[in-house]
């Protein structure tokens, strides 16, 4: 089972590097550097992370092909590899619709979005292969059933779920899994010795953001249509996930979209996902926001190594 960390790209480059070095030295297998709407440019950030870490693989993304064309994506991945070796993977997804529209990038026809993304993934993979960069794994970020099913065309899928029940459902949507295909989970996470989950506003906001991204069919599948309706109304008015949106979701529901636990609890969680057949867990925000939380993850990983 591989462990990943979503790097907090709202930090300065210096702090990002410090935390990546801690994670790298502590045995975290993957460092994921997301792109827009983050302030910093993920491909450039991936270069500075690669310059400073020794063993972790570096994931570039989530990157939206709506913002960068497949040719541009191939160009930055190949430049990273040419300068720093075969240590990079790529995560593709449509990106945040509201944020993209603020910079003049439109989703276009929504009914063809999944098809277009899969076509871009294929183009990127083929082009990288043709140029001899066959060590890059191209992942697709997925939450809805169409995207999950389509992800089989990529090298792996990063499922935007925390709750094992939801992940189990996603696995059924995936169906037969081709050899070598990787499956990862991407839970918002807060791992600490004594976590006070109700007070962790960063975690609650991350959980609410994932919950608000849930499509109609998934909400119906898990009986969340009514539960999330007040938060959705609030989001329509506010246009961003703020405290009112978060508070409109009940605690039990929020818990399904985030991992708030002790190091021992986190190891149990990882064990559960491993038994389900997952290959990777990438701990999402706020786990990457502070050195302390990154160190907590490293200690959790040590605990895992010692008890596995």
């Amino acid at each position, binding site marked *: 089972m591989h462990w990943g960390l979503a790097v907090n790209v709202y930090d300065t*480059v210096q702090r990002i590097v410090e935390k990546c070095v801690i994670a790298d030295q502590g045995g975290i297998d993957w460092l994921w550097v997301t792109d*827009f709407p983050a302030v910093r*440019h993920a*491909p450039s950030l991936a270069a*500075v992370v690669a310059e400073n870490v020794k063993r972790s693989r570096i994931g570039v993304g989530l990157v939206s092909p709506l*913002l960068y064309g497949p040719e541009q994506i191939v160009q*930055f991945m190949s*430049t990273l590899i040419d*300068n720093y070796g075969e240590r990079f993977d790529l995560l593709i997804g449509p990106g945040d619709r509201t944020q993209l529209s603020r910079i003049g990038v439109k989703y276009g026809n929504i009914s063809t979005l999944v098809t277009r993304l899969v076509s871009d993934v294929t183009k990127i993979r083929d082009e990288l292969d043709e140029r001899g960069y066959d060590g890059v794994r191209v992942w697709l970020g997925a939450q809805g059933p169409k995207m999950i099913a389509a992800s089989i065309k990529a090298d792996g899928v990063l499922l935007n779920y925390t709750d094992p029940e939801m992940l189990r459902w996603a696995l059924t949507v995936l169906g037969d899994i081709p050899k070598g295909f990787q499956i990862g989970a991407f839970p918002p996470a807060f791992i600490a010795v004594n976590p006070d989950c109700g007070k962790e506003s960063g975690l609650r906001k991350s959980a609410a953001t994932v919950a608000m991204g849930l499509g109609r069919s998934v909400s119906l599948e898990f009986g969340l249509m009514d539960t999330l309706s007040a938060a959705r109304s609030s989001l329509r008015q506010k246009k961003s996930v703020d405290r009112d949106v978060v508070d409109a979701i009940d605690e039990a529901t929020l818990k399904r979209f985030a991992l708030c636990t002790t190091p021992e609890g986190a190891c149990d969680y990882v064990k559960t996902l491993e038994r389900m057949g997952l290959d990777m867990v990438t701990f999402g925000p706020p786990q990457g926001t502070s050195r302390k939380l990154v160190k907590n993850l490293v200690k959790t990983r040590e605990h895992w190594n010692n008890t596995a």
Partner: protein
Amino acid sequence: MYRASVGLTTNMKASATGWVARNAGELGVDGIWIGEDIGLGQEPFVLAAATLLQSKGIRVGTGIIPIAVHNIATLARAAVTLQEIGEGRFIFGAGIGGIQDLQRMNVKIRRPVTALREGVDVLRRLWQAESVTRNTEVLQLQDYSLRLKKPIEIPVFLGVRGPQMLKLAGRIANGVILSGPFDYLRYAIEVIDNASSGAGRKRDDVEKVVWLPTIPTFKGMKEKLAKKVVAIVVADMPPPILDMLQLNREKLERIQAEVAANGPKAAIPLIDQEIIDMFAISGNKEHMVDLFDQLGGMGATEVVLGPPFSGEWREAMSEIFEEIALRRGA
């Protein structure tokens, strides 16, 4: 005394760009400029990041990034990232882009001077941690900010050519990246200085970087490659600049037509020594540094060596920088 820098392009291999960056300090290089061959070779921002990381203590700039080819938010974010990576050593060099490149990409800009002015204005506002709404020919931003905790200063150098663009650069830029025949460069520097004075700025407020193709003939430079590069430069030269030159206009127009129809390789037979001398810096190291000195005397604050790089270009580069150091009395 002028700064002496090295120019790289994205179409160079990582082994070559990495060599320049890692050896820049030892060579005595003051800066590295990265030109974007649109869509070719290395990605410009990742290359700039690697160059900043591989070099120590010198300025690294893009020279230039065509603003209409990238989303403005990407440009703003990349520049912030690079300035942090370089701890203040990064320069954002921007422009509209070469005629040939934009045509190839089917990018049409009706008002290039306005587009560049607005692009620079928006970038600076975003770097000042402002929220920006703008809807223009090349910019679409709605209540967008970089969410910076504090403003960040990033020098903007403009790669410009025509008189209106030169005036714009004199008014708003921290520096200008110029390329063209000597007669044109003399004119361009004068226009920039006049525009900067007119805007109440000091002459020194606008740095003048001159980047010409450099062709060291003493270390096995391939003549064909040199001629191909000069053909590209001639093809991108607008008519008002050609009017300034004491050269057979018909000959230059024939080169332009050949490049447009069949590419720069096809124009190689049309490039003679007279044209090479007009559009490039070539010869032995002493002669090349003589020409750099001449540019410094004309008001260039920085000269850029290369590309094209071929033959024993590493040795040629070392010897040219040794010659510059010798004349500086180092």
